[in-house]
């Protein structure tokens, strides 16, 4: 009984946090992109456009839901449902922190720990391609069909280098469960170098990490691999004919996929919730970061560059100070510090996704396929062979 109640609470917490992240990820993406392109980005709704995600949700909910004629009704309605369901499913096996005890009840900071966790995520994401392919096919539109076809071919091709890049750190970590993976990455070599997969001997997985990241860009249909929804060729690709909440499902699925691949990269390669420095030096890092943020906000609040800055920025500063003080509460300490490290690693990777979108142009379709099969796949195989050989030599 306790187990069910605790699980329900954990599911509610994770869902609330995940959904907010998805909504605000889009705001962050717009802001970062516009600053890369020397614009200001959304500023109309709320201070610094902070209420823009809410406005978007209201807009999408109240928009007219158009069903084009001559579509295959069943599959047209099924496709967005498949896309969004499978994207949200994989967050269930991600661990965000070590085992903690709340009011004497010991529990893991994770909805469930499967002993085939990574395989579960791979299975779920490999089914997810049906949502995009079917949506493109059922819309009865040439552009959508081409978008769907492209995404099916692209995702199947890039799944191979991605899976092989995932296998190499699994050889080092010797488990398929996410929790044990992260636990095997704890500790420090020579007292300062964290034993994350990308630093861990006998063969640091830095190449595996880069290959995984490139394949992840393709798997999530992001620039430079966003051929399935290339605007200047295909209108909007596979979701051209979708509007209202059905479009929102596809849109959310893309961001959920992005978050999922960043979580996997963090857990597999970047040591999950383990800090960058040994605990005596790293426990005060969150406090310093939040105090620095507060300082910057107060400085700019006192020298306002825009209207309202002298009100909004100090508020953010006060919030940052409150957050910094939370890290001094001994009960919350053990919960917040792992989450801080996990979230900052995932956040950094998400920022890289947005950064690349603002920087790189799109591939041509033949370049995309050629890159996957003649460079990325062999590179992943060689990385796996070297890892396997060195683990076999050094392991026993």
């Amino acid at each position, binding site marked *: 009984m306790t187990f069910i109640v605790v699980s329900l609470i954990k599911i509610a917490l994770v869902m609330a946090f995940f959904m907010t992240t998805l909504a605000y990820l889009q705001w962050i993406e717009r802001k970062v992109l516009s600053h890369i392109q020397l614009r200001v980005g959304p500023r109309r709704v709320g201070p610094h456009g902070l209420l823009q995600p809410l406005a978007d949700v209201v807009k999408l909910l109240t928009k007219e839901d158009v069903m084009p004629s001559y579509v295959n009704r069943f599959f047209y309605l099924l496709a967005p449902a498949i896309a969004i369901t499978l994207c949200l499913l994989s967050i269930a096996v991600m661990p965000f922190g070590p085992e903690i005890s709340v009011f004497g009840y010991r529990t893991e900071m994770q909805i469930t720990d499967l*002993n085939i966790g990574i*395989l*579960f995520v791979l299975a779920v994401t490999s089914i997810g391609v049906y949502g995009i392919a079917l949506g*493109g096919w059922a819309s009865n539109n040439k552009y959508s069909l081409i978008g769907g076809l492209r995404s*099916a071919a692209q995702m*199947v091709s890039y799944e191979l280098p991605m899976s092989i890049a995932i296998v190499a750190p699994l050889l080092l970590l010797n488990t398929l469960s996410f929790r044990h993976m992260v636990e095997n990455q704890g500790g420090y070599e020579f007292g300062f170098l964290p034993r994350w997969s990308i630093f861990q001997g006998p063969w640091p997985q830095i190449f595996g990490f880069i290959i995984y990241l490139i394949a992840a860009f393709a798997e999530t249909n992001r620039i430079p691999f966003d051929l399935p929804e290339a605007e200047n060729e295909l209108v909007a690709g596979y979701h051209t004919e979708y509007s209202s909440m059905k479009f929102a499902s596809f849109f959310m699925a893309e961001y959920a996929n992005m978050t999922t691949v960043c979580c996997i990269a963090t857990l597999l390669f970047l040591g999950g919730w383990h800090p960058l420095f040994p605990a005596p030096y790293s426990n005060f890092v969150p406090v310093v970061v939040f105090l620095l943020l507060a300082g910057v906000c107060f400085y700019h609040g006192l020298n306002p560059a825009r209207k309202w800055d002298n009100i909004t920025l100090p508020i953010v500063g006060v919030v940052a100070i409150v957050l910094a003080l939370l890290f001094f509460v001994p009960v919350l300490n053990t919960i917040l510090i792992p989450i801080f490290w996990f979230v900052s690693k995932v956040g950094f990777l998400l920022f890289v996704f947005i950064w690349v979108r603002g920087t790189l142009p799109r591939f041509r379709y033949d370049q995309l396929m050629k890159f996957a099969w003649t460079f990325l796949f062999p590179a992943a195989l060689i990385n796996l062979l070297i890892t396997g050989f060195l683990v076999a030599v050094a392991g026993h």
Partner: protein
Amino acid sequence: MNTILFLIFAIIAVACGLNLVLQKHPISSALSLVGVMASLAVLYLQLGAEFLAAVQVIVYAGAIMVLFVFVIMLLNAGAEKSSNKSWFAQIIGLPLLLAFVAVMGFLIEAFLPPLRAAEFGEWVGGSAQQIGRVLFTEYLLPFEVTSILILIAIVGAVVLARKEID
């Protein structure tokens, strides 16, 4: 609990299997096959073969069937027209099916060692470690021969495709 889940997913598997044959459109048939594979994966999971279940979904439902759907979409195959049913097929079909099932049932009962019902959760050899160990010790030769067989098929496909281009 296990029995209820088994019944639910067994019924889904059979229903999807029937739907696969009955549907007129190739995409519907292909997706029914995905349903069959996914529900079989759940049955594997119930029997304790969690690695097999995950691989079933990744390989069959996630890779092979995506290629099927891809080809159907690429060729833009429309709904099949039902052929003019011959009176012979209509009359003989159902009896022939029943006879086939009866013969198969008899053969299994007569020649295979007596079977008993599987117990859920009784078998624990389905983890990735155990399957890997068995695959690379006891069944090493069949495993390697199978991979070479697949390699031959790939080379054959490349050769055939090359001929058409030239």
